[in-house]
């Protein structure tokens, strides 16, 4: 009897699981852009090995792409979806490019991409703030 009750409770909890809100998704996106930025910065200062940095950038790009896809499937209301789509796609591609530049050991181009990533981060942050304000 007790087992049955526990099972029913678990099913209710599982059914109650809801997907993350757009604001939470934007927080995750910002977290992964921040990770890519910090890992990139550390690599430029020769404080992290190539393999780790490349793998972290690839993971960041992959996760960012997945969260962006989920977010854009049901985009938040009152937000410029086209602009959101553009900046997220560009950011994801930029991080992938940074990962490739590590293999090529092209630090100058890597530094330029990192600067652009910082600009992307500000744009995404502004969009995240507007989404949070409208929730």
């Amino acid at each position: 009897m007790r087992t049955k009750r526990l099972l029913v409770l678990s099913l209710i909890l599982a059914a109650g699981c809801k997907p993350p809100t757009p604001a939470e998704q934007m927080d995750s996106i910002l977290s992964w852009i921040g990770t890519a930025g910090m890992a990139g910065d550390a690599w430029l200062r020769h404080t992290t090995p190539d393999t780790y940095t490349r793998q972290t950038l690839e993971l960041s790009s992959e996760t960012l792409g997945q969260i962006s896809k989920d977010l854009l499937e049901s985009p938040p209301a009152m937000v410029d979806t086209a602009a959101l789509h553009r900046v997220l796609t560009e950011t994801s591609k930029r991080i992938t490019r940074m990962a490739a530049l590590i293999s090529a050991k092209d630090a100058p181009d890597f530094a330029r991409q990192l600067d652009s990533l910082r600009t992307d981060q500000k744009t995404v942050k502004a969009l995240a703030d507007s989404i949070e304000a409208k929730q």
Partner: protein
Amino acid sequence: MKKFLQIALGIVTSVGGFLEIGSVTTAAQAGASFGYKLLWAILIGTICLIFLVEMSGRFSAVSKHTIVDAMRERFGFPFFSIVLFGMVLVAFMVLVAELGGIGLSLQILTGIGFPWWAIPVSFVVWLLMWKGTFGLIENGVSLLGLVTICFVVAAVKLHPDWHHAARGLLPALEGDQKAKYGFVAVSILGASISPYLMYFYSSGAIEDEWDVSYIPINRVIAFFGMSFGGVLSMAVLVTSALALQPNGIDIDKFDQAALLMTTALPRWGFYLFAVSMLIACLGAALEISLAISYFFAQGFGWNWSESLTPSKDARFCLTYTIIILLAAVPLLLHIDPIKVTMISMALTAATLPLAIIPFLFLMNDPIYLGEHRNGWISNSVVGIVILISFVLAVISIPLQIIGG
């Protein structure tokens, strides 16, 4: 002089053996998500652990029983089997997390994914258990674990606002993200107040043949050792609040946590983090494997001692062999050790009453402890912290599940 050396060694090994994947991950996540606001959870977890460790040592030194042995004797086998099931299940999940932590440390150092490390790491842990003695496990790995002091150096080098940090030592409610705040607080408490540590410590006191004369030494070791350990956890939280939070990083993966010390210690921070985690998780994996085996052997009345040869305590050795082998399976299946860590820490907190309440009964039993039984301060402190952990766990775990 001999006792002074024992105290020094005890404190040093407690410091080295305190950190493991649970305490590092939960503290780093707390710092990255909530700044200094969850320092209080580490503080009360550490205070409770000081009392529990002191009680465990005192219990074994006076009664000449381990906690498990006495629990079965005092409450009977049916009740003991419930505690056994709950404790072994949670400790097994923590073991998976620790083996995963070693694998993840090797992954960031070599680039080879953690599932590939599951078997070699499990084999090394098993081999150390099979060939090693209790002294080697207790002192050797824990002494190496002193490298974790680098977290304190990193925190100090980031020049935290100490006044602001001190405010985090007082519990406060979080405005946003209440469920996550509660869940991380519960996980920190679960990571700090690990029942396996009590079983390990109590069995260690019997292995080292403690008697009543060890009570003062036990008190000093419990206080200073666990306090320094708590400081290490707080240093992880502070470093995370200063290095990761400004970058908006919220720790979901181990790769993100690996950036923790790259700002404060640019030259060695990354490698120190990886090596610290490797050693800390190895030490914890050995302690948990031993604790689970102690639980079975003492509960079922088998021969047990890490210092005996395997032929003299075959069932004890078979238990850790099977447990270590089984713990490698989830890692081979690519189950994320960080997720296992967070869930197992929260479950540890939720099941604390199961482990601690019977122990409190034992600690107040004059048959076992005579005049050395607990006073009201020990009972109250431990009782209140366990109640807080349980209530927080019951509220925040379902909320976190519902919140996705």
